[in-house]
């Protein structure tokens, strides 16, 4: 609930700031001075602003037109002496677009939905609806004017106007089974994931940006298993300096409040090019200069990141993970660089700590002989790349996509081998690829001996519920 309040506060804060700015009303006030009626003057001034936003070629700025509409209409209602009317509970709000304050005034406790003929998935209302789990469909175009019942299916993004008895029966059944499934999964969200046998499974999350943290309660997971640092390195933007990186990493580490937060060092190259860093014109980028190969070649970039990480490590339980390791020397060189950065910071009198350094296990050369990598503080199996390299098939090519199967016995055999070696050598093993987020792969992963999975945050409750059945 705090997150909803946070977003609602930001949205209302923005509207208040606009209303407090004399520049907003200035054209209206001069029109009134010239004899124009207040409501006409206000509508004219705001329509001018709204037109400016609607003309933007940027989705985000275009979506702000809805906020201006909201401001215009609320002032007009007050000028006319009308009350702000909330919608009735459990109803479908239907319109071209709806105002954020209309969303906030609606009592959603009995359900309800939003169906918009226009609207936008980046609007403030969409953010609020997503946070509250209110079904919302946008961009429906012109709907028949005389609708008495509208069935809104947020999962498929469709609506059904005036469903007949048969359609209604189907819709109600689908809605109930969806609600039952979600509700029964929800009971598991804040419980530790535990198998029938009593074995505890750690469920961590994969994140790729700071904004995501607003939507996740740390109490629902056992930490962050994979934070992709690439979001700081935007293609075409200047490289982030140490201070910028430090502030970002600190945000993740403090969010974890003592739970492990695993940040992966820069993993660009392959399908993630960054101009000025990744090489151009590689014949086969997935087999080229990517991950730790690239950062070891760009000592300056790697050092800046490792220094920022060592500084962030003092704020909580940070672990650092190196991607695309192929030979033990890459881990040794990365560890030496990290040690050098820690020594340098210490000499400079800057607070820092030496975080544990682990590796991604995603190159078959590591998965086949994990015992050569015992210097790693932990193993995190990257099943996406491991599958791609073991099956020699790309996920991006529809013609071979069927071969790119993480449940191929060869992939599962390697996962089993790494998990077994980790147990014997006392090295923690987790898996952070997409397969961990798919309930259909759960049984195989637990069978392989894994007791720690890092998953998409949206899947936490569903996976915990599924684990309880296994």
């Amino acid at each position, binding site marked *: 609930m705090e997150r909803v309040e946070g977003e609602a506060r930001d*949205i209302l804060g923005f509207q208040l700031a606009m209303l407090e700015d004399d520049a907003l009303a200035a054209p209206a006030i001069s029109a009134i001075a010239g004899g124009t009626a207040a409501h006409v003057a206000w509508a004219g001034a705001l329509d001018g602003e709204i037109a400016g936003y609607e003309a933007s070629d940027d989705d985000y700025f275009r979506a702000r037109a809805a906020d201006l509409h909201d401001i215009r209409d609320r002032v007009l209602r007050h000028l006319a002496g009308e009350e702000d009317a909330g919608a009735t509970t459990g109803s479908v709000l239907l319109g071209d677009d709806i105002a954020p304050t209309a969303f906030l005034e609606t009592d959603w406790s009995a359900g309800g939905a939003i169906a918009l003929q226009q609207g936008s998935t980046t609007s403030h209302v969409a953010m609020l609806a997503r946070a509250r789990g209110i079904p919302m469909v946008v961009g429906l175009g012109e709907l028949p004017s005389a609708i008495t019942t509208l069935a809104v299916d947020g999962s498929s993004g469709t609506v059904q106007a005036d469903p007949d008895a048969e359609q209604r029966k189907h819709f109600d059944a689908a809605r109930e089974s969806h609600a039952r499934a979600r509700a029964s999964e929800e009971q598991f969200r804040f419980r530790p994931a535990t198998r029938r046998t009593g074995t505890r499974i750690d469920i961590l999350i994969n994140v790729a940006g700071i904004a995501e943290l607003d939507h996740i309660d740390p109490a629902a997971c056992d930490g962050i298993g994979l934070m992709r640092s690439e979001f700081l390195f935007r293609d075409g933007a200047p490289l982030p300096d140490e201070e910028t990186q430090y502030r970002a990493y600190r945000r993740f580490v403090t969010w974890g409040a003592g739970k492990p937060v695993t940040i992966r060092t820069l993993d660009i190259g392959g399908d993630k090019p960054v101009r000025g860093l990744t090489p151009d014109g590689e014949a086969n980028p997935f087999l080229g200069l990517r991950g730790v190969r690239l950062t070891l070649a760009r000592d300056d970039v790697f050092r800046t990141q490792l220094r920022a990480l060592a500084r962030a490590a003092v704020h909580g339980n940070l672990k650092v993970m190196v991607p695309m390791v192929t030979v033990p020397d890459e881990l040794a060189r990365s560890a030496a660089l990290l040690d050098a950065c820690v020594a340098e910071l210490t000499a400079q009198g800057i607070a820092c700590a030496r975080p544990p350094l682990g590796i991604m296990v995603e190159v078959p050369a590591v998965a086949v002989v994990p015992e050569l990598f015992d210097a790693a503080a932990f193993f995190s199996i990257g099943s996406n790349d491991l599958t791609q390299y073991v099956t020699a098939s790309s996920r991006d090519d529809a013609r071979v996509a069927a071969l790119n199967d993480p449940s191929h016995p060869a992939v599962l055999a390697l996962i089993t081998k790494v998990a077994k070696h980790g147990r014997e050598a006392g090295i923690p093993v987790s898996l952070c690829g997409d397969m961990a987020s798919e309930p259909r792969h759960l049984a195989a992963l637990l069978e392989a001996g894994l007791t720690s999975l890092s998953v998409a945050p949206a899947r936490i409750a569903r996976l915990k519920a599924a684990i309880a059945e296994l």
Partner: protein
Amino acid sequence: MSDTVNGSVVITHDVGLHARPSVKLTKLAKGFAATLEIAGAADGPWIDAKSIVKVMAMKAKQNSTLFVRAAGADAQAAVDAVVGLVRRDFDEAGDGH
């Protein structure tokens, strides 16, 4: 503006100078006595950095350069503060909100 102080900074924030950053920028700007203006180009047009209506209307996007100028007693501090805020991604990278 004889004693004008100038500055510039690249906007790295994901969606540019959007609602929440604009609120932060104008609140910060109002804390200074100096006249404080921003622009999307070195030669303007310059707009009042204390007016959110005008700041939002700029629709400044990610990777665009924001030019800042100020005049008055605390002009240097005002320019430094605005440039610092934008450079820190409006404190959304480090501190949350």
